[in-house]
């Protein structure tokens, strides 16, 4: 029973990672850049939920406000910081992204202070089936993530915008020649990714109510790891990688001897995967051309 609980915990952590990883992987696939600031958009979403909860007290409304704000934030980050650098060296873009991440963290600390805020989204209690005790938040996280992933997969596969996204990620120049507005597609991608980050912030606050300006930093890096493990640029890969990371984390947290090293183990998994299979589990191997 305990093992099943651990597994469920892993699944819920993993699905949160998967939702974050989707944002990374989509932006990476389409804009070919690592959006380092993605994790901090989660944190901004968390603060938006906190503000709405303090004002109105409705978690669903809080989520809506957070999603809206994060979408606007994601689009403006892209327009201000990344768009001028399109065509510049990848190193420059990466350093700017790190700068944006730092900027968001320090701005949040200036506005809200460094002391963690407590945000109790909703006291949901546990579901008990026989000897199995599962908190409701896990089930909500799992359910919402599955819905999000399915919607996103269908969106990319069957809508015109989604197919344009695939085209841009395959070949930007050719897509432009086919009449696709590449800039608009990149903006939409950032908007979707940031919206998903707000959802991830909501899931994380349901799990533990402590909110600080580094809320998204570690999960962001882990989710990027998940995206890399699954194969960056691939949407199913992000899901697989996220769930894998979550289960590794949940399992290593239950063993007392290695629990303090949980982060180290997850990063070790990343290094090993990159050494053995740099393109990830579901990623495509691309030959580099001149």
């Amino acid at each position, binding site marked *: 029973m305990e093992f099943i609980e651990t597994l469920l915990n892993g699944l819920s952590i993993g699905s949160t990672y998967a939702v974050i990883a989707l944002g990374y992987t989509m932006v990476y696939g389409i804009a070919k*850049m690592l959006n380092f600031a993605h994790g901090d958009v989660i944190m901004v979403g968390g603060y938006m939920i906190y503000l709405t909860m303090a004002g109105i007290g409705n978690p669903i409304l809080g989520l809506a406000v957070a999603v809206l704000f994060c979408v606007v934030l994601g689009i403006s980050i892209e327009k201000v910081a990344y768009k001028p*650098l399109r065509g*510049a060296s990848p*190193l420059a873009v*990466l350093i700017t992204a790190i700068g944006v991440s*730092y900027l968001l963290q320090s701005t949040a600390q200036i506005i809200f202070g460094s002391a963690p805020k407590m945000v109790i989204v909703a006291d949901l209690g546990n579901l008990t089936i026989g000897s199995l005790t599962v908190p409701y938040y896990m089930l909500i996280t799992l359910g919402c993530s599955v819905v999000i992933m399915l919607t996103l997969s269908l969106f990319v596969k069957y809508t015109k915008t989604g197919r344009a996204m695939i085209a841009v990620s395959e070949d930007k120049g050719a897509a432009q020649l086919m009449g696709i507005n590449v800039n608009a597609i990149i903006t939409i991608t950032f908007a979707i990714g940031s919206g998903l980050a707000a959802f991830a912030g909501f899931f994380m606050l349901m799990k533990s109510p402590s909110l600080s300006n580094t809320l998204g930093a570690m999960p962001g890096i882990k989710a990027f790891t998940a995206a890399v493990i699954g194969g960056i640029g691939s949407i199913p890969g992000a899901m697989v990688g996220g769930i894998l990371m979550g289960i590794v984390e949940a399992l290593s947290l239950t063993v007392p001897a290695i629990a303090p090293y949980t982060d180290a183990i997850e990063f070790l998994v990343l290094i090993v995967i990159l050494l053995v299979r740099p393109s990830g589990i579901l990623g495509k191997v691309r030959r580099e051309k001149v």
Partner: protein
Amino acid sequence: MANKLTNIKWKHYVNYIAVAIVTVVFGALAFAGALPSSALYLLEKIAISIILAVSLSMVVGFLGELSLGHAGFMCVGAYLGGKASVILEPMLKGVPAGKEIALVISLIVGGVVAALFGIVIGLPALRLKGDYLAIVTLAFGEIVRSVFMNTSSESFGGALGLSTPRYNKSILFIIAFVLVLVCLAVTQNLIRSKHGRAITAIRDNEIAARATGINVTKYKLAVFTISSLFAGVAGVLYSYSNYNVQSSKFSYNYSIEILVMVVLGGMGSINGSIIAATLITYLDNTLQTVLTGDLAVLQDLLYALILIVIVIYNNAPALKNFRDRFNLQSVLKRKFDPNHQHDDEAKWDRVPTKIAMNEILSVDVQPQMSTLDPDKKEGV
């Protein structure tokens, strides 16, 4: 002989001379007792920052790969070098110059172990590049930190940190600056050699570099190893300077701070890195007393803005014309050079004739007419 002296490119030696002058001046002041211990501490910190920035600049500015684990290498050096000095201190108690021997040995230990880690991290660097490499180095830094944080208190001090022996403050900063000179000598001689040109070729176009026969693997590994060696040395200096090594110091944020120094100084400019490292360390030190509590974060905000603004300004394709027009060199030239010609104005008093053109063209650009002449066959 005289000809040889005038042929020396003085600008290649400016930074050695500047660092040497700073060392001598402050060394004299320190022996005269005119410097408070806080100033000595600041000088040590500046020297450590310069070593870190110059060594990171090799990876980021010259090899063109982003390492976010520089603080991790420093952490390895600080802990292992610090531990070596703790072990050696009682062993060399009666020996003359025992403290100096302990310092040298711990510097070697810290540097070499960090360099070994550099090789370990450099190996994936051969397969990975760009964002992947950045994330692997970041992961490495976090792994190192979390491993040292969870060690037992007997081995590496665990969460409380490792206490290291004290060393004479007024000499330590001189040693630190001598190490800065060593670091500069190694880095600049490497960069200005043919190997350095190979390294910059890898940065500019890896595939083309490979095609011209450059051993990309070898060079990447070498740069990573040398860079982490100096990060380790800086770590040992840090352990000596602070008496206490805490793993929380070597977080991801510290790697970013070093990166800010490199970016602010201008990527691919060692002198720039030195100046930026000095400036930022000094600012850090001054702001620490001014900005307390939640205000301390204003400093991070400043770093973030520096990173974003400088990188966008230097790299945005749309700003290229603006940069060319208004960079310091061309502005100065317009101001002070009476013969300077504007890009868009032509002077018609000297129309270049064909003969003049041949004079203008440098020797190696000039086409050799004999080989280009189609009537003449080769070997005739």
